[in-house]
């Protein structure tokens, strides 16, 4: 499964902000932390703001902070905002999809996609953040 860059940036940013909802972080800080384009991230954060997941904080030390419900927002919700739904991506286009081999192959790829979607729908931002405590330590900010 390959997510678009905007979707990856959105997940990183929204999880980064949801980890500490009282804190606010600038676009540059977040971009620097994950080694991603600040310009691209700024656009992604505006989209997340329109969806109510983050809010811009003005003034000195301004930036963004989390404003959504971490327990009620799934990874899939964020992915869906950026159009990476994965549903239907496994379809083998006609005319190959209409053949017996194309249809059988499509069923297997659909099974893989359905499992991926079910997994992403079942993991809330809060659960993913909590899960970091259950895994071996990696780079943290």
């Amino acid at each position: 499964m390959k997510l678009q860059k905007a979707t990856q940036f959105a997940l990183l940013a929204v999880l980064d902000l949801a980890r500490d909802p009282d804190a606010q972080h600038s676009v540059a800080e977040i971009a620097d932390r994950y080694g991603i384009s600040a310009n691209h991230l700024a656009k992604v954060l505006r989209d997340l703001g329109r969806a109510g997941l983050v809010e811009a904080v003005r003034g000195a030390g301004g930036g963004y902070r989390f404003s959504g419900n971490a327990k009620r927002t799934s990874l899939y919700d964020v992915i869906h905002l950026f159009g990476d739904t994965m549903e239907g991506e496994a379809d083998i286009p006609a005319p190959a999809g209409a053949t017996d081999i194309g249809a059988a192959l499509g069923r297997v790829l659909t099974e893989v996609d359905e499992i991926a979607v079910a997994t992403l729908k079942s993991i809330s931002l809060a659960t993913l953040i909590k899960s970091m405590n259950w895994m071996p330590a990696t780079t943290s900010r």
Partner: protein
Amino acid sequence: MDESPQNQALARGRVRIRNARATDMEAVAAIDAVITDTPKSDYWARAYHRYATRQGRYFLVAESAGAVCGFILGEERAWEFGSPPCGWIFAIGVDPKCREGGVGTALFEAICAAMREAGMTTVRTMLARDDGLNMAFFRSQGMMGGSFIELEMPLDRGDTR
């Protein structure tokens, strides 16, 4: 949660987890019927004898203000396709009126503790792919995709070769 004595007790953290009794089955069946929309009192009467009275099987209930508000069932399974002994959870239910009060978490933690005490080191469950509520619950408790994959096929398909 509403303001019933049961939920006021829940809010104060007074939920008690204990082994199921035969007299709990009416309440368990009622909670299950609300959740699944399929009443099955006979099943729960049999489930009590099958799971609450045998070693290696677990049938726990959550009690708040003297009333049963949730249940969980599980058992030890061993050597299924090479899997060393592990705990299986195959049913959990919380009265919808008592949700978001920590009842499910208390039940899950209690059955895990009992399985751990019996020497099991892994706990598993299996859910419908579209069962978002339970999937999100078990994920929030730390469960993740494991090393086994569920496979199935209809037995009335005809040619099974």
